[in-house]
């Protein structure tokens, strides 16, 4: 068994934005259910002891927590490389200065589109785009490295070149062009978000040209949508292999979407150690290695390359988390992806929000 390399800390589900492709679960956790900063400090110490090197501080919007500076300081004190994954709309100069003093290593800032009108329609927050521009400037003026994260889909791919330009204007050294992955709210909105094959091919062409054009100045990471793939993505580098996530309420997860698999029970950090969760829990051991794999994964030459794909996607699309990811052309259910593509079109967004039932 390998030790984990990175921990994704989902500090809160609160967020001023309402992106319809949010990877958070449909049932969001309220502030009263969140781990405290002292509990997070303990999580980070345990994570570092277990072998984690990086902490990705995410959410929701991590800076929606008033104790975010204490949380960053605790992650850094544990020896973790601290990456703040933020929408940027709550960042101002005093907060950024305090985060930097606490040891923040890197900022990843999201954008929803290249210009305000589209960005604010997609993100569901007025004034957000200008605040993101201001946040990017503050991060660069502070001398912190900046990665821009552009989530792309059917409704903003026509602006991809402009988003790449924006990364250069913002002074980002890295840009993630991430096609939406269909979990949580994104799955709910799939018909409005799935790109056409022509859009995908054009996006890939633009990214490859931009990589060559801006070599040495901007690194572009490209996450493709597997609905058009013949092989599934090697999700999380394997279940329980190098990555773990902690939900706002303290559930220890092999990936941030794992709670979407109905019927699986995950350990909670309030009642177990991180090491026990990683090494001994049923949830982490369920899909570790290759022994659990069904046909056609069993014995397949790709088995240890893509690990049978994504468990959450297998559950979401065919109701069986232990099945081969239908993104694989060898899956007997591969046709469900083509059906989803055929249904995509001009559907309206369902914006992310806390459900009335929970309030």
């Amino acid at each position, binding site marked *: 068994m390998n030790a984990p390399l990175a921990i994704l800390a989902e500090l809160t589900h609160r967020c001023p934005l309402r992106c319809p492709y949010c990877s958070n679960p449909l049932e969001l956790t309220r502030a009263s259910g969140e781990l405290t900063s002292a509990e997070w400090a303990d999580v980070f110490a345990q994570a570092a002891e277990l072998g984690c*090197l990086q902490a990705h501080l995410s959410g929701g919007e991590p800076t929606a927590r008033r104790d975010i500076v204490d949380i960053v300081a605790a992650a850094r004190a544990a020896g973790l490389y601290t990456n703040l994954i933020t929408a940027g709309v709550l960042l101002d100069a005093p907060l950024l200065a305090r985060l930097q003093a606490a040891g923040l*290593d*890197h900022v990843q800032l999201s954008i929803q589109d290249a210009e305000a009108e589209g960005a604010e329609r997609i993100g569901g927050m007025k004034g957000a785009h200008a605040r993101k521009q201001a946040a990017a400037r503050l991060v660069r003026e502070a001398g912190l*490295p900046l*990665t821009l994260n552009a989530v792309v889909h059917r409704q903003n791919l026509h602006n991809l070149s402009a988003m790449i330009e924006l990364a250069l204007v913002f002074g980002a050294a890295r840009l993630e062009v991430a096609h939406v992955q269909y979990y949580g709210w994104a799955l709910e909105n799939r018909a409005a978000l799935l790109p056409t094959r022509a859009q995908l091919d054009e996006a890939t062409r633009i990214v490859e040209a931009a990589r060559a054009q801006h070599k040495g100045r901007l690194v572009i990471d490209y996450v493709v949508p597997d609905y058009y793939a013949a092989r599934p993505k090697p999700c999380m580098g394997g279940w329980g292999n190098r990555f773990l996530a902690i939900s706002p309420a303290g559930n220890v997860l092999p990936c941030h979407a794992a709670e979407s698999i109905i019927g699986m029970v995950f350990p909670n950090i309030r009642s177990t150690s991180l090491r026990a969760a990683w090494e001994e829990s049923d949830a982490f051991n369920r899909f570790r290695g290759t022994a659990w794999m069904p046909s056609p994964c069993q014995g397949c030459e790709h088995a240890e390359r893509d690990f049978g794909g994504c468990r959450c996607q297998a559950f979401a699309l065919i109701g069986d988390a232990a099945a081969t990811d239908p993104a694989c052309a060898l899956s007997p259910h591969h046709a469900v992806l083509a059906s989803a593509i055929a249904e995509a079109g001009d559907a309206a967004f369902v914006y992310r929000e806390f459900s009335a039932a929970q309030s």
Partner: protein
Amino acid sequence: MIPRFAPGVRLHHDKARARWVVMAPERMFIPDETALEVLQLVDGARDLDAIIDALVEKFAAPRDVIAADVRAMVADLTNRGALQA
């Protein structure tokens, strides 16, 4: 010239795996032995000559040999984004 780590880059001792790693934005890499000897002397105060002097002393090797190795290594680490140009 004083070699410095690029913004967001630092050398970290990975206790769980008993090795050193270079931590950088959205990536990490494991330095080879020569790179590690150089990176452990990058402190924002030592200039290139001081780093070479320290390694000449440590390895009791001819200065021109060490100097050539260190200059090549610093250039390589700069190209890889670990050190600042």
